[in-house]
């Protein structure tokens, strides 16, 4: 199992959700975060000076999925969240060793 953490533009959340749904991926956890990338946020011009607004609101989507689903999900997120401009976000993938349900005793152990 892997966990995919995608940091996207908040205004793209609906599109991403819809695109994932279409492909059959439902479960996810969403958090409101703020962030900056390598571009250090957004530069505003103000009377000749540059003012950097460095903490931009972003939406973080976390999905724990089977190993084979990682690629299609990344593709789907990219397709639906991309604008081509700085600030589109990043996707991070890391390992999950165990997924346990709370409602019942179901468990999936990653080998």
């Amino acid at each position, binding site marked *: 199992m892997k966990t995919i953490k995608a940091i996207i533009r908040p205004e793209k959340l609906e599109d991403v959700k819809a695109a994932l749904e279409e492909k059959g991926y439902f479960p996810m956890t969403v958090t409101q975060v703020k962030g900056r990338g390598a571009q250090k946020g*957004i530069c*505003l*011009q103000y009377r000749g000076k540059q003012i950097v*607004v460095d903490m*931009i*609101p972003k939406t973080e989507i976390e999905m724990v999925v089977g190993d084979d689903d990682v690629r299609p999900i990344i593709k789907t997120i990219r397709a639906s969240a991309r604008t081509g401009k700085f600030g589109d976000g990043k996707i991070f993938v890391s390992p999950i060793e165990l997924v346990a349900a709370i409602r019942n005793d179901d468990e999936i152990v990653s080998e």
Partner: protein
Amino acid sequence: MVLDTGDTAFIIICTAMVMLMTPGVGLFYGGMVRSKNIISMIAMSFIAFAIVSIQWVTIGYSLSFGHDISGFIGGLDYIGLTGVGMEGEGIPDMLFMMFQLVFAGITLAILTSGIAERVKLSSFIVLGLLWTTLVYDPLAHWAWGGGWAGELGALDFAGGTVVHISSGFGALALAIVIGKRSGFGKYSMEAENITTTLLGGSLLWFGWFAFNAGSALAANGLAVNALVVTNISAASGAITWMGASWIKGKPSSLGLISGAVAGLVAITPACGFVGPMSAIIIGGFAGLLCYGALLFRVRKGLDESLDAWAIHGMGGLWGALATGIFASAAIGGVDGLIYGNTHQFLIQLIDASAAILYAFVMTFIIAKIVDKVMGLRVTEEEEYVGLDISQHGESTTA
């Protein structure tokens, strides 16, 4: 005539209550924009009020209520409030000036709907000063200052054309000139602080009692009539809009409060001329009409963002016509269409049409000029970051 302490007390308090409507508009609008622009919306209302306050006492009052020039504008007699004294009929002239000031203030605040979430602050200030001078002041003169509309016999008790048609159709013109918010139509831009909007709406409903009843300029039966029909129309508008939106989906609280505002707008010109049962119809139909106008606007992809046009513009138009329909001589001395007076209805139609045309065209021209000279709109980055940060250097958790 001597001053009357009851009337004077009444209009002083009414002035304060109408003043509170201006931040009320700010809160009402502020709750409907994305949180990154909430400070900007509220601040623009304050700024509108502040600049109009100074404009009004220096020149605006004179342009509106100075001696009539060709039916179009007032003379410069009252510049800097010279000659505006503490005498008057029932209330001091100075108090009348002040009561009119708060009307001018809120009108500019309503106008911010059309440029919400994308206007450059400095340009708004210039635009606002031009607008209140070139649009509001003449319209106030036409209706109440001895201008052609009042002379013609057009009825506008508390500002249907002067306040609502002007700001509603003005906002439409602004929205067209400034263009859509980036992302409009592509992703949802739903109201994020509805509690704030409902609070703003409460202050509006509260202040509107003073707006309409106070327009009698005395604490008399006419004021009481205005008070009663105002509340009825608000309630009626709230119910029909809620009902209509219920049929289409869920009855939102925004619909409820928008319907109340629609009812309040529509009764504004009429409240000194119509009775309680007419008010049920006026408000009820306003709720439906303005809701329809909103849906129409959305369908057309027009980003007149906070619906000043749909609610104030169309509601004001309906109110002007409804005055010509439901007016009853028993209440305000003039009969309307239902009592067989077609003439009055036609006058109302002419008056409203002229106000629409004037407000729309003049606002369009002013906006174009400001846009050319200094740019009406913030940059794409500034818009993305939000006006709170880009225009005010502030942000708020709520």
